[in-house]
């Protein structure tokens, strides 16, 4: 096991910069998730760590060793690929044993490690099967097993759950997390699925267009996003945004556009009130208005969509000037498509961003 460090790492493909000055420290035994949309550079960052791509600039360390020019096989890392990359002509046993054989490990130890990994993953009865005779979930376990037997310094996982169906994905992600906690190996996990990121990672590193936007524990990233990208990307359903004009009214600040007007406490703007501000509201912090609820508002609008989620429903509400908010309501809420509704926001739960820099200002 070892800590991993990216130090001002840049990767360019011709004119395109896939990763830009990435600096990230991953502690020994930590589970860090690189998350971001397609093209954000997360997979490239992982491949740089694996040695499958060559850095343009910067330095990567595994433990205390700089691995910039170290071949993948000498980095002592194991990788789980999105398509599992099992060797099709080999049995499960041979797949698990291959890397150990390449390291000329004694046969008895190979046998012992393979059996132990197979037992941990519950694939003992599959050892003599070929990959084509396995289900997607079983292949995924074999791919994990192949990484596990190596007992490497770090596990690298490139969207390993994306080929599984939704139910299996939920089950497997907790198994991977549990497995990682059991063996305590440093893990870098790449996904575009923010739910996966939030449920699995000790820390989450959010990337966008090659830049690390924010890194932190899941709660911090969710509750204190550093900019509109992180705020919009983390959280499902996504945060709603609206850019409004702002002016101070005594100890309060009024933000408004058209009929939409909210009064926020002036203490949320310690560095002065800008002319414009972007507000962000998470669906779980917006509720249907009723007098005396203590909510900030009201915001008048009409129901644009209703999504029944079972335990609750999600309303899409548009104001007259097409500012949109999403709101969680009870599943038995009478609101129907086109109905006029009033929405309020929990105090202290309105996220404030600078509309020009997109950086977070605070909450109000």
């Amino acid at each position: 096991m070892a800590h991993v460090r990216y130090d001002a790492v840049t990767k360019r493909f011709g004119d395109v910069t896939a990763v830009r000055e990435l600096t990230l420290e991953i502690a020994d035994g930590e589970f860090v998730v690189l998350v971001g949309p397609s093209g954000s550079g997360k997979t490239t960052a992982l491949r740089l760590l694996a040695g499958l791509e060559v850095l343009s600039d910067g330095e990567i360390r595994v433990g205390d060793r700089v691995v910039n020019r170290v071949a993948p096989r000498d980095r002592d890392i194991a990788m789980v690929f999105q398509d599992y990359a099992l060797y099709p002509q080999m049995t499960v046993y041979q797949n698990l044993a291959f890397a150990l054989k390449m390291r000329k490990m004694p046969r008895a130890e190979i046998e012992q490690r393979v059996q132990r990994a197979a037992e941990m993953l519950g694939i003992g009865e599959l050892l003599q099967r070929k990959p084509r005779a396995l289900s997607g979930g079983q292949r995924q376990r074999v791919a994990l097993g192949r990484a596990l037997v190596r007992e490497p310094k770090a596990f690298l996982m490139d969207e390993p759950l994306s080929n599984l169906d939704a139910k299996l994905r939920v089950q497997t992600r907790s198994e991977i997390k549990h497995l990682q906690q059991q063996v305590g190996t440093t893990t870098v996990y790449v996904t575009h699925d923010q739910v996966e990121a939030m449920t699995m990672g000790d820390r989450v590193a959010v990337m966008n267009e090659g830049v690390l936007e924010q890194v932190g524990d899941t709660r911090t990233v969710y509750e204190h996003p550093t900019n509109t990208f992180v705020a919009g990307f983390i959280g499902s359903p996504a945060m709603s945004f609206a850019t409004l004009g702002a002016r101070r009214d005594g100890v309060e600040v009024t933000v408004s556009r058209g009929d939409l007007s909210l009064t926020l406490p002036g203490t949320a703007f310690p560095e002065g009130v800008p002319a414009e501000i972007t507000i962000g509201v998470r669906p779980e912090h917006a509720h249907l208005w009723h007098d005396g609820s203590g909510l900030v508002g009201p915001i008048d609008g009409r129901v644009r969509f209703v999504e029944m989620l079972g335990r609750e429903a999600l309303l899409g509400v548009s104001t007259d000037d097409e500012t949109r908010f999403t709101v969680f309501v009870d599943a038995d809420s009478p609101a129907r498509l086109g109905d006029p509704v009033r929405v309020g926001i929990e105090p202290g739960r309105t996220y404030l961003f600078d509309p020009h820099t997109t950086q977070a200002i605070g909450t109000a």
Partner: protein
Amino acid sequence: MNTTASRAQVAFNYALLTLCSIIAIYPLIGVALASLYPPGPDSAPSGFGLPPTFAWHNYVTAWEQGKFATSFTTSLIVAFVMVPASVLLSILGGYAFATMRFWGSTVLFYLFILGLIIPTEATIVPLYYDVRAMGLLDTYWALIILEVSGEVAFGIFWMRAAFLSAPPSLLEAARIDGSSSWTTLWRIMAPFAKPAILTLTVLTFADSWNEFFLALVFTVNKFTAPAGLASFSGRYTTDIALVSAGAVIVAIPILIVFIIFQREFMRGMLTGAVKG
């Protein structure tokens, strides 16, 4: 989907394929039937017409008079050396072009493609002088070296495509697992590309067996089977039955090889054509 239209389409497909099959098979059956007509200048085989008596002995006569024992030996010796050498070089070249990034690889690859485009006839005269200068005229080596050099152009093109159809992650997993390029080729990629390799083997064998032009130019006493057939047919040009028997004899080895590898051959031909 409209079922009636679909059935009509299926019927049309079958009709078209049957027609193509008949066109392909017609000359073969014609030759096979002609080979069984009684020999002699008066023998007059006609298309699909059955012979009055089945003269099986024609095959023995053709074998002996055409000296096929000698030309078969030449063809077998050449194929025995040329096919493995050609397939091995194609695998190595194809693997390098498919998986390795090296300076000048694109230019080199197009050079190989050029080998596919330029007909042998265009280079035969300088080749003749080269082979003569090397003292290889009328030797097995002349045929082996020239056939191998002709085959690797296609072979590398073929194997490169086969290796490119493998998921890149397979190679990357092998690299991370500690496998060298050599081990990755033989333990991971070659088994993956087995259908393509077997197909290439069959095609290379067929090309080698059918070699006519090079044998005619570079050998005098070491004719391959088709070249032997050509000289045989020259001598017995009026005896269609014996010439046909000779043609069938020459074709039989390829038929046997194809039947043995038929399944793998078809799989190899379809590699990359359908999503796996």
